[in-house]
């Protein structure tokens, strides 16, 4: 494709070149840090309760702990969210639903596994009906505890924000 613009002439695919330039710009330091800052403070977890840790997750969104001050507000629809909290044990039946929800979420998306069950089965390690989240999803942050205290949930959010702002998790490709 040939483009002519006020006398000068460029040869090549303008659309492709523009996308390449945008990707280069977005991955360049000042804009990149602005972008990561924006993502870090707009974490929207999907309202997906998998097991009993949901009780403490609910408490962390409530007064006293108030995770909303980190820009972290549980939201209803998976298509508008970017964080998936695996709240405790993942049973086989629920694991299927967790994968559906994860696939519906738009990029960039993050997964946090909450509770001892989310790490390696916890007290239910030898149950016949559980799945370890790390086997089916890319988990970014683990929260230990059975159940973890709401402070630990807040700590996990801060850890996720730090990871995002270091630029480890989000990359744009052409």
């Amino acid at each position, binding site marked *: 494709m040939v483009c002519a613009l006020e006398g000068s002439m460029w040869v090549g695919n303008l659309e492709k070149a523009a996308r390449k330039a945008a990707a280069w710009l977005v991955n360049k330091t000042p804009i990149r840090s602005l972008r990561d800052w924006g993502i870090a403070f707009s974490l929207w977890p999907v*309202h997906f309760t998998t097991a009993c840790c949901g009780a403490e997750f609910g408490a962390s969104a409530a007064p006293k702990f108030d995770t909303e001050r980190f820009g972290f507000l549980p939201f209803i629809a998976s298509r508008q969210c970017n964080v998936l909290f695996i709240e405790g044990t993942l049973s086989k039946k629920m694991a299927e639903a967790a994968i559906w*929800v994860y696939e519906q979420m738009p990029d960039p998306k993050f997964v946090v596994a909450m509770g001892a069950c989310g790490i390696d089965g916890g007290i239910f390690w030898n149950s016949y009906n559980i799945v370890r989240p790390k086997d089916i999803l890319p988990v970014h942050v683990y929260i230990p505890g059975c159940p973890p205290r709401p402070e630990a949930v807040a700590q996990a959010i801060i850890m996720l924000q730090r990871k995002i702002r270091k630029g480890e998790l989000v990359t744009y490709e052409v």
Partner: protein
Amino acid sequence: MSLEERELEVLIGPQHPASGHMRLVAKIDGDIVVELRPNIGYVHRSVEKLAEVKKYLQIIPLVERPSLADTTANNLAYVMAVEKLLGIEPPPRAQYLRTLLAEINRIHSHFYGMGIHGVMIGSSTAYMWCFGDREPLIELAQELTGARLTYSYIVPGGVRRDLPQGFEDKVERVMRYLENRMPDYFDIYFNNPVTRARLEGVGVLTKEDAIKLGVTGPNLRASGVPYDVRKAEPYAAYPELDFDVITEEAGDAFARVMVRVREIQESIKIIRQVLKNIPDGPILDEKYMKMIPPNLRKQVEETGHIKFPGVFANLRVPAGEAVARVEGGRGEVVFHIISDGKMSPYRMRMVTPSFRNVILFEHLTKGARVADIPAIYGSLDYFPPEADR
């Protein structure tokens, strides 16, 4: 158009705005629910099977996990069944301490249910207030037991810790705060025209149906059946305490919420009586106190924290069967233990209130409007991990 063509099947969940780990399969005709079937089993973690390979003391934390918001009821029912097999009776002070924790837990479990119900019918204020007012009670329980929700406080033969110093004053402060706070709830939530319109006359459960379906807990009492295990088969310190069984006549979603609110006030009454009448004495049965080595026993007497001897961990229970019933926040919890004299039970069966109430989803939503589904769902105080075990 025939009826089959008019009906539409809607799958709600397992990821849905209401808090809960279940799928509701609804058949709707316009705005009317023709049939709603709950699809449960999303949190089945085989607690009963795991109990067969764990030791008796290890099962205490295991049975608490299914109902995280109301752990004391499960803990107490399980320990009572084990105590029946062992043939021991905990000392009176331990009985009172059990009652104290059970009532604190009942209040914050009711707040949990009311908060979740609030968020389901779109009242964020109710959620924030209930979860905020739950915290002082959790703080109390935490000071008594050392954990926020999973207390594991009740052990065979007694309890793990004595009352901390100055605990009575703190409890009294919280109780006074709650009493002053409850009128605010009526002003802003219960007497709110929106709440009334969404809950009154919705999901009516008649007295006959409630008895026929085997419903339990506040959902049964909201239909006018004065059944409470604390009165029907008194345990712990309840025979010595004075309290009423709360009932409502209407049987609708609003009555179910009102029963919980009035039970909170009744629990405040019980807690005050417990702290007034609590007797002095040991908190663990003599038989187990003797097992504690002498140097540790001195420490136990000074701090009031029980240190378990190794023998206690390998607790052997004589062969036999025992059933124990407890009134939890959501209803009647039943534990049936069959022992063959080994270190693990041969079979442990737990009957949880949520599982007995799950039948109401199908029963109450027939003919209701689609918007009433969350209002009915929330009013049942259904906790899926508890039902699925």
